[in-house]
């Protein structure tokens, strides 16, 4: 097995385990509490509205909005890490068919692996810090994945038939 295939398959398996482990941890220890907080803050905002206290209602909506922001990103990160893991393994299985030399295949494999790790990492970091750094990490990861995917599509199209 070539080095690029090994890199993609083993990285993919590790990333799948990491993504599933993250999902299991999130489902067991975080998700139920977050869902309670989401439903609770939204209901509270409307009950405050029913009492005519619009300041309290808006404050509860802010809590709802912040919790929703974190929840969406946590669930997205879980599904994106696993999705990328599957993509890495699939490419790993057939990477030798790419119409490029092994050195170029290795470079593409690294681009895809680094992008697959850093893009969701940047997204989950946004739950800790909403500044520019996590967004830059996510954008960098996404850019690497896009470049790698475009090159891989070209490589598969260049493959000669049987």
């Amino acid at each position, binding site marked *: 097995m070539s080095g690029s295939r090994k890199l993609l398959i083993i990285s993919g398996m590790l990333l799948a*385990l990491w993504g599933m482990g993250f999902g299991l941890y999130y489902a067991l220890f975080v998700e*139920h509490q977050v869902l309670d907080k989401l439903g609770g803050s939204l209901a509270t905002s409307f009950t405050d*509205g*029913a*009492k005519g206290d619009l300041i309290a209602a808006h404050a509860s909506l802010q809590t709802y909005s912040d919790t929703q922001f974190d929840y969406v990103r946590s669930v997205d990160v879980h599904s994106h890490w696993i999705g990328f893991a599957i993509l890495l393994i699939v490419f790993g299985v*057939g990477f*030798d068919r790419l119409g490029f030399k092994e050195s170029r295949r290795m470079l593409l494999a690294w681009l895809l692996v680094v992008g697959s790790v850093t893009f969701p990492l940047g997204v989950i970091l946004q739950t800790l810090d909403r500044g520019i750094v996590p967004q830059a990490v996510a954008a960098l990861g996404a850019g690497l994945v*896009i470049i790698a995917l475009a090159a891989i599509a070209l490589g598969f199209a260049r493959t000669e038939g*049987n």
Partner: protein
Amino acid sequence: MEQAKTGFEAMSARRLLIIGGIALIVTGMIFGDVFAVFVLHQNANKIGEALIGVTDAVAAKDSVAVIASFTNIGGLLENRGTKVDTHVHVIDFGYLALLLALIQPYVALAKRARKRLAVLFIIGAVMLPVSVFLIHYVGLAHSPLTTIGWASILADLGGLLVIIACLGELAGLWRSARGARDAIPEDASLKDRSWASRALLTGGTLLVLAGFLHGARYAIADLSEHEANDREVLEEMIDRSAIVQTQIDKDMMFAHKSVETYGTLQAEKAVKIAAHSHIIEFGLLAMLLAFVQQYVFLSERWTRRWVIVMLSGSVVLPVFVLLEAQYPKWVRLIGGTADFGGLLVVIALIGMLVGVLRHGGQLDARKGARA
């Protein structure tokens, strides 16, 4: 001998994973179609009605009714969420099963250990989504815990079985990388460069790229705006309902209009995310199918036909799902076309499953004839 070479003998890990994987994907897609037709839209309408009830309760200063309506909405959201999760997990486990089948040549474990891992994986892959589906119906009945019920516990157990199976496969890969020799030999499926295989690989990669670009565009251009609008419309809903508390004629038109806007916003978000995830998943599926061509016993002409059917359906479904939000007047026609795209993919998959079963049957018959 031929079966042992490809690792595709009866009840082998590879055959279990390929047939189990395709069956899981077909089941998940049919479940998704049934869910979309019979649950999704009806559920969204009920949530809209419950939200109108919430605004009416706010206007009537009735906090108890507000809580009752939210409890109702919570139930409706759980119903929808668990069904979406079931659909997604069945299909994703199907993909993972196909992947594990493909990497079997690099899993240096004894034949029996590989088969046990495959069975463990399939048990977990069925247990998790079935349990998730039951969460809404079982609730907290007889649960030893205060926050999660038996269905959630069993779902987590299913997930754990899948993780254990993947860890076992990873150990096999590790042994293979270190030079252990009990891996099955690599077969021609990974070197197959037939027209069908190349079309599926290139088409699949392009679909994934298109889905990723669409997702990036959504994250940059729409996500923050949707999140801000989400909060803004909810605030409007409360404010407009609260204003009515002091009015004599109790006109709820503006508050109800906000509920309508909120529904439109949620629908827009949902279709954009659905288009993103479906186009990527179909791309992955196309690539996976490229690698199992060797196990599909069909004529060249039929193989090409179902490749075209598969790729056409993979483009039609997400594109028309996206168009649903842009042309609400034509939603039935556009939604129907999107469902037709899904049907094309299901037909192509069933065709392939039949081809795989025929291939297995052919190998078994040859073995029987020799014996």
